């Protein structure tokens, strides 16, 4: 009996192993198929494989051949490992002769990877140098990260002033607006912790480090909006720290600059927006600057975010409704339909649609109102006043202001005029 049992076991064991092997193979194939299907996204605004400017194209020209070579090497290695595992699996056979050292094999297996790496290193170094070039800069913009949004300021100096008509500094946030086919140099830094700036379709990443200014070239080949996201974990709302680069034709860009430099006009007296201006001055202007806003005595209202916020700044809202996003580009100011109309428009009609800004019909009332009601509920920002001892009472973002619905209505009406 025991002999029969042993025989059965000997036959059953390999069968069991084969069944397990098939199950593992099926599972692997299913997971691989799912992973492959996941890569077939139709709407992928941060796809690194779709360059939309010469800098991103240089990266693409480098990464594609490297990816293919690495892919082939990877397949060869995995197939070889798989074959070795299968071919030499333990079937109770004697352990083969153990040898040490095969100089020819070792040299070949060292030289081939070295040659492949050398083949990758040469074009990589060339691309790095090309991407680091700054002598051909046509426009310079300061990009400053802070928890959890990006500020852009366009200095009114040098070629910015002489060639692009930026006669006074322009400060904006959420959306970086640049002219097409222009070599823009970003001076990237941070006010608090390390962030990383990345618009995948326009160039690679650049860390923004407090106390350091890093240079990043950016150039868009055709009008459109290009999405990006902070790529260095920077705290609680890191995933809400997004950005968009807007590329406009030169004529549209000139119009955008002219609009940004226009003098402030107060809402017509007696309107809801005029009421909102008063509420804004009381509640919002402590942190948010609106250039041109005046006190009753005619002096300019200067925000003092340095007294309330750890990073010392809050977004400048002078021309809020010329942007399509708010709160670190985490939410759209446009309704989904209007947003799609702008994003999906062709490069010829894009500029006109973008420059329209946010109209009453297109305003994303829901998210904006939710934000005004209780911003920290929408975007976590350590805003609980009881937990601010470590920051000396300063917030890391916008606190809940306890606005009434009437106040919110009036502020929304006022902000709608900030174009």
């Amino acid at each position: 009996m025991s002999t029969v049992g042993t025989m059965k076991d000997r036959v059953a064991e390999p069968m069991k192993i084969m069944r397990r092997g098939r199950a593992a193979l099926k599972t692997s194939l299913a997971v691989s198929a799912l992973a492959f299907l996941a890569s077939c996204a139709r709407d992928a605004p941060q796809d690194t494989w779709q360059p939309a400017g010469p800098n991103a194209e240089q990266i693409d020209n480098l990464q594609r051949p490297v990816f293919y070579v690495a892919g082939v090497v990877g397949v060869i290695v995995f197939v070889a490992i798989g074959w070795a595992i299968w071919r030499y699996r333990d079937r109770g056979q004697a352990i083969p002769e153990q040898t040490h050292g095969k100089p020819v094999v070792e040299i070949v297996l060292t030289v081939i990877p070295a040659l492949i790496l050398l083949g990758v290193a040469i074009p990589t170094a060339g691309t790095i140098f090309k991407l680091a070039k700054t002598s051909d800069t046509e426009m310079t913009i300061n990009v400053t990260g802070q928890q959890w949004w990006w500020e852009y300021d366009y200095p009114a100096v040098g070629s910015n002033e002489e060639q692009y008509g930026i006669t006074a500094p322009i400060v904006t946030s959420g959306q970086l607006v640049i002219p097409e086919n222009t070599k823009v140099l970003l001076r990237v830094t941070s006010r608090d912790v390390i962030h990383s700036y990345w618009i995948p379709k326009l160039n690679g990443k650049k860390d923004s480090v407090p106390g350091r200014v890093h240079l990043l070239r950016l150039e868009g080949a055709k009008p459109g909006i290009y999405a990006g996201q902070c790529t260095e974990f920077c705290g609680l709302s890191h995933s809400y720290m997004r950005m968009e680069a807007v590329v406009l034709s030169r004529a549209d860009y000139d119009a955008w600059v002219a609009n940004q430099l226009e003098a402030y006009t107060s809402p017509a007296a007696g309107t809801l927006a005029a009421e909102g201006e008063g509420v804004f001055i009381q509640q919002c202007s402590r942190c948010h600057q609106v250039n041109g806003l005046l006190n009753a005595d005619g002096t300019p209202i200067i925000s003092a975010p340095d007294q309330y916020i750890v990073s010392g700044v809050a977004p400048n809202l002078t021309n809020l409704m010329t942007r399509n996003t708010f709160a670190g580009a985490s939410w759209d100011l446009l309704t989904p339909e209007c947003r799609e109309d702008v994003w999906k428009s062709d490069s010829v009609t894009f500029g006109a649609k973008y420059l329209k800004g946010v109209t009453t019909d297109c305003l994303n009332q829901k998210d904006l109102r939710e934000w005004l009601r209780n911003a920290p509920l929408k975007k976590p920002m350590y805003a609980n006043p009881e937990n601010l001892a470590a920051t000396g009472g300063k917030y890391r973002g916008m606190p809940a202001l306890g606005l009434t619905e009437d106040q919110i209505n009036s502020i929304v009406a006022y902000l709608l005029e900030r174009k």
Partner: protein
Amino acid sequence: MITTSSKLFYGLGTLSFVGALVWVVAHDGSSLGSVALIFLAISLLFLGGIASYVRDGHVLSTDTAAHPSAPAAQSASGNSWWPLASALSLGMVVVGLISSPGIFKIGIALSIAMFGEWMITNWSDRASANAAYNEKVRGWVVHPLEIPIGGALLMTVIVLSFSRIMLSVSTVAGPLIFAVVGTVVLAGGSLVSVRRGVSKRLVGGACAVALVALTGVGLATALNGERHELVEASEYDHYAVHPCGEEAEEYDEEASRAVSAKSSIAATVIFKDGELYAEMDGFSEPLTSISLQRSYDLTILFRNESVGEHRMILNYGNVIEDLGGGVTRDSKLQACTALIGEGGQQAITVRIPKPSFASPLSPYNIVVSGIEDSSIEVSVP
């Protein structure tokens, strides 16, 4: 079944759970420490469970007559240094309580480590009748901790000693020492790698001698203090912004080296042939108008390339202080370098809280004291 070794884990696990509860109560509901302690407790209880399940390695721990190799049948633990080390650590805790929080924290960490080592040694001494196997068992448990921590401590000693030496020697000798030490290490390493016959003892001995020498010199230089320029810079509070007009000697012409090693220069301001201009990354041409960011720690480097001593002054508006009783004081906001001789340079770090349009009557600019007709316009958006 509660075996000899599982008692330790169960006991510690229970203690951790109690500790988690105490933490929550003591820290007003804070969950961070309690989560760590609960995870520790779960891990320890899991280990206890394993010890119970395998009955301390299939040995009936209590039946010493039938199983003379059971842990309980083994002799008591041998001599150990851990009790002494634990006592010293506890002494450090007491000293730290009186003198310094740093010593207290180190004492706590050392106490935990020493008690842990003591317990594990005690346990492993009784793991079997085979002393060599017991030593191996102990190694399985503690080596994954001892080796990296020991390595980190060794690195700390080396880095601290070396840094003390480098901070004490002159700026001329520093690079030379660095180059010589680096060359000796590289040459020694290369020699050992190509000569297969070199005994491990010899290499180990040489490394030990080098470590002792390095630590000794490092300790001596630490006691002796840093080089005088650093002491002076520290006393002068080099990185602080000083009120303008207060005369001070330029104590370290190459201070910018230290600054630039830590941060980028937002703008380099150059005073040459009576003219003032700025250079900034991203701008190829000299600038007489610059834009600086608001609420940002800006480092501005002033370089004097003119004859004589000059001081750079950054004017960034004014501040009105309420002195009470309806009295206010309007003060200029300025940041200045010391008087810089020809060829010298100094960096200052300043944070500008308000935009330049906040002070229409006091424009933001950079000037050199005594030079009226040359300035750099500063815009802060």
